C-alpha cells in the first residue's frame, strides 16, 4: 500500500475543505476503498475519514419524507423499524448485501458511490478498459457480468444496491461543497465516463454526499434482484419499481435497472407502458419487454436481457402484491 495522508475532520465544512485538494478521497465504511488502495488500483494522497464528522449519520422519518445520512450504515437502516415499515423494499435491497460484516461497516453513501466491480477495472486496466490499440477489452474479452446498456466505451455496471430503488422513488441526494449545499436527483449523481481518468459520478472536487431524501408516501415500490448465490454475491441483475396511483390503475410507474448499465438505468419506456394502466400479466409483460428495448448485449451477456425482463416482471409483481 503506497503511503498516504489521513485526515479526520471534525465538521462537514472541514471535510469539504480537505476534499477540495487534488488526490483527496473520502473514506466512509472502508469496505472497498482500502482494498482498491492495497491492490494499487487507485492511489490517493490523502484519505478524509468521515466517521468522526457529526451530522452525517442518522435516520429521520418526517411525515412522508425519509432522510438518511450518508454515513448511516446499511445495518442501521435495516434495523430502523420506521424506515422499513414505510419502505419495505429497502429491506430487500439491503438484505441483498448478504454479509453481516459489510452491512455493519458499509454506509449508505458508500453504497451509492462505490466504485464499479468490473474485473478489468479491478485488474488495473482502467474503468473503460481500452487496450493500447483503442479496442475495448470488455467487448473483446469476457463480459458476462457487464452492461447490456453500455454507454460509449463505458461497459461496466453500476453496482449500488440502493440506487435503483432511490432513483425509482425520485429521491434526492444532498451534497455539500465549497459553494454550500445543493440538491439533485439521485440519478444525477451518476454518469458514464468517456475518457480515461473520468469518474463515474458527478461530484466536483470538494463535494461530499451528506445524505438522501425520499418521499416514501403514496407509492408502492419493490426491488427484485437476481443473484446466483444466496451467500454474498453481486446481483446479476436488479430491478426497482415505484408505482403511484390509487385504485386499480397505475398513474405513474418508475422502473429502474441495476447491474445493467454504467448508471442506474431508468427504463422510461417501461414506465410509460404502465401509465394509466391496470397491472395485469399482459401489461406487466409489455413493460418488461419495453424495459429491455434498445439493449445492446455483448458476446457473453445476452442472458442478462432475459434476467432484466424477469426482474422487472417480478418487481412489479411484488409492488402490486400479485403473482406474475
Amino acid at each position, binding site marked *: 500500500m503506497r503511503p498516504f495522508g489521513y485526515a479526520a475532520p471534525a465538521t462537514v465544512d472541514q471535510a469539504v475543505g480537505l476534499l477540495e485538494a487534488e488526490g483527496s478521497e473520502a473514506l466512509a465504511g472502508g469496505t472497498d476503498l482500502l482494498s482498491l488502495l492495497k491492490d494499487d488500483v487507485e492511489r490517493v494522497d490523502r484519505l478524509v475519514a468521515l466517521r468522526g464528522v457529526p451530522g452525517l449519520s442518522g435516520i429521520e422519518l418526517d411525515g412522508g419524507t425519509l432522510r438518511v445520512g450518508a454515513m448511516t450504515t446499511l445495518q442501521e437502516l435495516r434495523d430502523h423499524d420506521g424506515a422499513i415499515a414505510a419502505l419495505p423494499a429497502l429491506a430487500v435491497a439491503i438484505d441483498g448485501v448478504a454479509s453481516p460484516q459489510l452491512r455493519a461497516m458499509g454506509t449508505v453513501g458508500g453504497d451509492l458511490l462505490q466504485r464499479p466491480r468490473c474485473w478489468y477495472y479491478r485488474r488495473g486496466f482502467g474503468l473503460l478498459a481500452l487496450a493500447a490499440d483503442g479496442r475495448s*477489452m470488455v467487448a473483446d474479452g469476457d463480459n458476462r457480468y457487464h452492461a447490456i446498456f453500455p454507454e460509449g466505451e463505458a461497459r461496466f455496471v453500476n453496482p449500488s444496491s440502493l440506487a435503483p430503488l432511490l432513483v425509482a422513488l425520485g429521491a434526492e441526494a444532498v451534497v455539500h461543497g465549497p459553494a454550500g449545499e445543493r440538491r439533485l436527483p439521485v440519478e444525477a449523481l451518476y454518469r458514464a465516463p468517456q475518457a480515461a481518468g473520468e469518474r463515474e459520478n458527478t461530484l466536483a472536487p470538494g463535494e461530499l454526499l451528506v445524505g438522501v431524501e425520499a418521499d416514501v408516501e403514496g407509492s408502492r415500490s419493490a426491488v427484485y434482484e*437476481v443473484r446466483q448465490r444466496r451467500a454474498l454475491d453481486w446481483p446479476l441483475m436488479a430491478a426497482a419499481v415505484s408505482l403511484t396511483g390509487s385504485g386499480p390503475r397505475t398513474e405513474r410507474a418508475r422502473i429502474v435497472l441495476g447491474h445493467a448499465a454504467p448508471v442506474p438505468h431508468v427504463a422510461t419506456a417501461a414506465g410509460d407502458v404502465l401509465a394509466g394502466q391496470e397491472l395485469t400479466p399482459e401489461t406487466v409483460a409489455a413493460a418488461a419487454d419495453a424495459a429491455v428495448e434498445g439493449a445492446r448485449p455483448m458476446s457473453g451477456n445476452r442472458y442478462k436481457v432475459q434476467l432484466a425482463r424477469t426482474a422487472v416482471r417480478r418487481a412489479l409483481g411484488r409492488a402490486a402484491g400479485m403473482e406474475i
Partner: protein
Amino acid sequence: MADYSWPEADRRALIGSRPARLDGPVKSTGFAKYPSDQNPSGLLAAKILTCPHAHARIVGIDTSAAEAMPGVRVVHVIQGEGAEIQWAGDEVAAVAAVTEEVARDAVRAIRVDYEVLPHFVTEENRDGAPDARAAGERAEGDPDAAFAAAHRTVERTLGMPQMAHMCLEPHGQVCSWDGDELEVHASTQAVSTLAGQFATELGVPASQVRIRTEYMGGGFGSKFSPDRWGIVGAELARKAGAPVKLFLERDQEVTVAGSRPSAFARIRAAADEQGRLVAWDSDSWGSGGLPGTGQTPLPYVFSRLPNRRLRHTSVPTNLAGSRAWRAPNHPQACFLTMAVLDDLADELGLDPIDFLDRNLDLTGRADTYREQLAIAGEMASWKERWQPRGRTREGAVHRGLGVSVHTWGGRGHSSNCDVTVHPDGAVEARIGSQDIGTGTRTIVAQVLAETFGLELHEVRVSLGDNVYPQSGPSGGSSTVGGVTASTRRAAQDALREVLVHVAPRLGAEPEQLVAGGGRVFVDGDASRGMSWREAAAQIGGAPISVQGRNPGPGRLISSGVGGVQIAEVEVDVETGVVRVERMIAVQDCGLVINRRLAESQVYGGLIMGVGYALYEEWIPDPVSGRLLNADMEFYKLAGLVDVGSLEVHMMTGPGYDERGVIGLGEPPVISPGAAISNAVANAIGVRVPYLPLTPDRVLDALAGRGGPA
C-alpha cells in the same frame, strides 16, 4: 509371528464411534496456530512480483528502486533477463522487508520490461489451440458394428473448465535459519518428504531441515512440494539472516497454486433394447495449463463396457500447470460419463437408477452399487418422487432428481509410527504425518486408546513434524489407512510387551490378557486384573517404545470403494438460477474409525461438489491472458446457505468392516457434478452441457429448445 487385526465389533470401545475432533476447540477458538500464524521474533515479510502477461520474454529487470526503499532487506530475482514466461502470475522476483506493506510496495517498484508474446488461454474450443496434440487413441471390440446394431444412441458434447483449489490458508511458509539449520513452518500435505526437497534445492543436508505443520488450512492435493515460493522464502531468510514469512496473496493463490484440469468431450453411447450399454465412442480434450492433459478415464465406473473407442487431445494453454485436485481425473470422468448415461436412460425411457442397475455387471463392484443405489433411492423416496424429465414444475421453478455413482482406491500409504508406554501409564504416539483438516490426529488417538483400553483424552498424539517417524504425504485418500495401520501395529506390539510383564502378577499367560475399560485383565474373568496404571508400572524403570509400520502383516487395510449420490435441485427457468435443495450420499470405506469424522469428510466433499457443479471456474481473459476472477468475489465458492440439506449414509457392518480401513477423502467429491447436472436435466428437460451450471448456461440450454414460456 504376531497377529495384527482390528477388534471384533463387540469389543470396540472407540473404533466406529463418534468422538468429536480433538483439536476442534483450539481451532474454533483461534488458539491453534497455523503455519501462517507463526510470528517468530525478528520476522520479515516477503512478497512476490509476478508477470502480468500470459506469455512474454523478460527483456530487462531493474531492482534498484526496490533495493533503495527504506525497510527493504533483500531483493531476489527469480527469473531474469531472457527468461520466457509461459503464464500470467509466474514468479519474477521477491522482496523481504520489515512489513507486508513495504514488501508489497517494493515489488511494485521493481521495473521489468517484457517482450509480450502471443498467448492462448481458452481451450474450450480446441480448434483455436496452437499446440493441441493427440494424446492417445485406443479401441476395444467393434464399436462401429455395435453402434450400427444398437437400439438407441445419444451423442453429446460436454465439458467442465479448469478451476482452482482455493485453499483458505494460501500456500506458503515461515523459514528460519539457525546457522545452517533450517526450520520451516509449512502449510503442507507432506511433512515427511518436504525436508529432502528443500535440502536438494538449498544445498544443505536433509538432516538439517526441520518441517513443522501442526495445523494447516487446506491443500486438496495442491500442497505436496516446497514450490518455488518455498525455496525463495528460504533463500530470502538466509540472505536476510532473519526469519521470513512468505504466503501467497489471494490472487496468486488462485492463479498459480493449484488448478484442476478441464475436460471436454464429444461422446456417443449406445444401448440395446434391454437397456444394456453396448458401445462407447469418446473424443475428449482438455487442459491442465502449459502441460496439457492426459486421457480422461472413460467410460467411468462402467469400465467393462464392450466395444469402445477413445481418442484424447491434450491442449496446452498459457496458464499455470494443474495440480492434483481431490480425486484427480475422477470428477471429470464421472460427469462426462454419468451425464451421457443419464441422457441415454432418458432416450430409452428408463428410470436412470433402473438403467444403472441393468448395467452394474460392467462395473467392478456390482453388489456394492446395487445395495447403495437401493439405500440412496430409499433415502430420496426416489420411486415415489422421480418423474421423467421436465414434468415437475410449479410456475417458473422446476424440480428434478439426479443420480451418479463413483469409485476410488484409497489404500493406506507407507507410514511409521512410534508408540511409547511410560511406566506411569502415559501412552503416546509420534508420527510424521499431518492433519490436513481431515481429523488424522483424532483417528490416531482413537486407535491408540482403543488398543490400550483407555479413554481418548488419556493418550497423546504428536504429529506434523519431520523429527517423528516418516509417514506418507496426505494424498489419494491414503492417510487414514496408513496411519491407523502403523499405529495399530505399534500399539499392539507395545501392549504385548506390557502384558508379558503383567502376566506373572496375574498368574496368567500374556496371551490370556486383554486391555479394556482402563484395566488389564484375564479375558473372560475381569476379576483377575489390575488398573492400567498398575499394569504399566510392571514394565520397570524405562518406557517401552515400539515402531509400527505400514505396509506390514495382518489385514488392517484394503482399497476400492463405491458410492452413490442423489441430488435434488430447483431450477428457476426464467433466471437460470439453480438451487441445490438436497444431496444424499451413500458411501463405503471399509472399517470406519470415526463415524463423525467420516461423515464430515463426506459433507466436505458434497460442499466442494456443489461448488464446482454450480459456481467454481477459472475465467481466463482471452484478451490479456490473465484470470479475471483471481479473487473470492467472482471466483464463487458455495456458501453454507447454498448447499442445501446434506444427508450421509456410511455403509458399515458385515461386508464392510472386515475389509479394514480404506480412505475416504476423495470419493465423496466425485459425483456431485454429475448428480447435480442430471438433476437439472431432469428438472428442465434438457441437458446443460457444461459445468458449472451458471444462469447463462442454463438459459442457453433452455433457449436451444425454444426457451421458457
